[in-house]
């Protein structure tokens, strides 16, 4: 089967992002960028399915600026076979991303589309579900286990109360949670090989998708800061403070 994997270029998860002084946007131009951690897990899952002989081809797609090529190359170094960049400088929101993906699904006919559950910049947690609506495919979100058999995929999902398993007919959409797998590192030979793998660049126009944002960011600001606290010398002092000062126990 063919698997389509969507990867997003985001600020590295170690960076503590701050608003710009004028509050117009976040200050990330010079921050280190990486594949969104959940997307890395998506790529890894596809590669494992290929190693098991279940998947035959892995197509990785990213939407965004030209620089997103780097993340597509990384995904190819991890094992994806070819890449598609939908290039645009417009700020993309999940509705636009899922519309582009819908067109690519029509073109590529994958049996499985794997996305991250959430991008760690916008923290939307929407795109996979929205792609499900647009394509009519069933969805297994927040997956911690994926098992394919008999034209179906069983997805174990991390939900608030514990774990839930659903069975979906193929083609289907899976969004990854953190414990689905532990992604491998790209080796140097594989990074070199990835440079020769095909990477096609198209535009949202080519796909006939209008990507203008529907939601406008008016301003960004830091969250309320906490007053610096105190160190206590002992458990007894801690309990005393919780009882008499904070009055929380």
């Amino acid at each position, binding site marked *: 089967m063919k698997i389509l994997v969507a990867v997003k270029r985001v600020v590295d998860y170690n960076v503590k*992002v701050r608003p710009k002084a004028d509050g117009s946007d976040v200050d990330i131009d010079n921050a280190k960028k990486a594949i969104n951690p959940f997307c890395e897990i998506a790529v890894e899952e596809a590669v494992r399915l290929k190693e098991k002989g279940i998947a035959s081809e892995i197509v990785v797609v990213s939407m965004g600026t030209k620089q997103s090529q780097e993340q597509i190359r990384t995904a190819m170094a991890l094992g994806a076979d070819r890449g598609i960049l939908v290039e645009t400088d417009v700020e993309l929101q999940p509705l636009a991303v899922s519309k582009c993906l819908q067109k690519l699904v029509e073109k590529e006919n994958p049996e499985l589309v794997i996305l991250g559950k959430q991008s760690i910049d916008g923290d*939307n947690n929407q795109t996979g*579900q929205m792609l*499900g*609506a647009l394509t009519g495919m069933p969805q297994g979100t*927040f997956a911690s286990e994926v098992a394919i058999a008999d034209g179906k995929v069983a997805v174990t999902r991390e939900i608030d109360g514990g774990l839930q398993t659903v069975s979906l007919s193929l083609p289907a959409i899976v969004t990854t949670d953190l414990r689905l797998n532990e992604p491998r590192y790209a080796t140097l030979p594989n990074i070199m090989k990835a440079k020769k793998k095909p990477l096609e660049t198209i535009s949202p126009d080519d796909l006939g998708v209008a990507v203008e944002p529907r939601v406008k960011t008016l301003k960004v600001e830091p*969250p309320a800061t906490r007053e610096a606290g105190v160190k*206590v010398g002992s458990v007894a002092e801690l309990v005393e403070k919780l009882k008499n000062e904070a009055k*929380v126990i």
Partner: protein
Amino acid sequence: MSILVVAEHDNGSIKGATLNTIAAAQKLGGDIDVLVAGSDCQGAAQAAASIAGVAKVKVADNAAYGHQLAENTAKLIAEVGKEYGYILAPATTTGKNVMPRAGALLDVQPISDIIAVESENVFKRPIYAGNVIATVESSDAIKVITVRTTAFDPVAAEGGSAEVVTLDAAHDEGKSSFVGEELAESDRPELTAADIVISGGRGMQNGDNFELLYKVADKLGAAVGASRAAVDAGFVPNDMQVGQTGKIVAPNLYVAVGISGAIQHLAGMKDSKTIVAINKDEEAPIFQVADYGLVADLFEALPELEQSV
């Protein structure tokens, strides 16, 4: 403009998160209807009708909605919701699963995890693991929103007497089915609703040592949470994870034990009223957000704490 709140429930009763979501809806102004989609869910429907401030309860009682399968439920929400100006649900795993799907069916860009209503089309929401708060404006005719429950005080569960309307909808897409679930059972309060939360991290070393935390928790009537590292290492199940990608909590008292304080963990607890950190490393970043920090070995501090509360 009228508002539809999608209830979180277990067919028999309404979950607390629904009450916080209705509180957010009240900030918008307008009649608030509640949609209860489930199977054998008359109990939940009746409970919804008693919530203060609800105008009408719409019930879709059908096997197709039994486990809130997104494929079926999103269709229902989009169909019922297209008459409304707003569709709101709590930002729980159920809400996050189904609302974006409903939004796309309506050609709407949903807004996740709002923490404030600024005006009828302007909202605040955290981004970048809560390091930044964005004020966003929606231009969609219908606003599809999930609500961060910790940011809104719940409305009263009693006092209302809404009319209950039965819908004869039955969307069965036939593409997904429920196989089973493993739900954590605990006599302790639910993490997201508890007044006190005590969480353990990698410093706990193994699952057995969590007993030390449970003992303190039981004396305080607290819920127990964990860092991702503790869950990944298999000390405790996934439903205990607090953080950017786990549960968001904001109790009166949060006690972090053997947790370093990574931004992804802070994202889930830093709005707690009082924060305590117990960590043997005095440089641990968790101390930067703690009201009371105790530099100590948790294996000594926890038994002592159990004795003195």
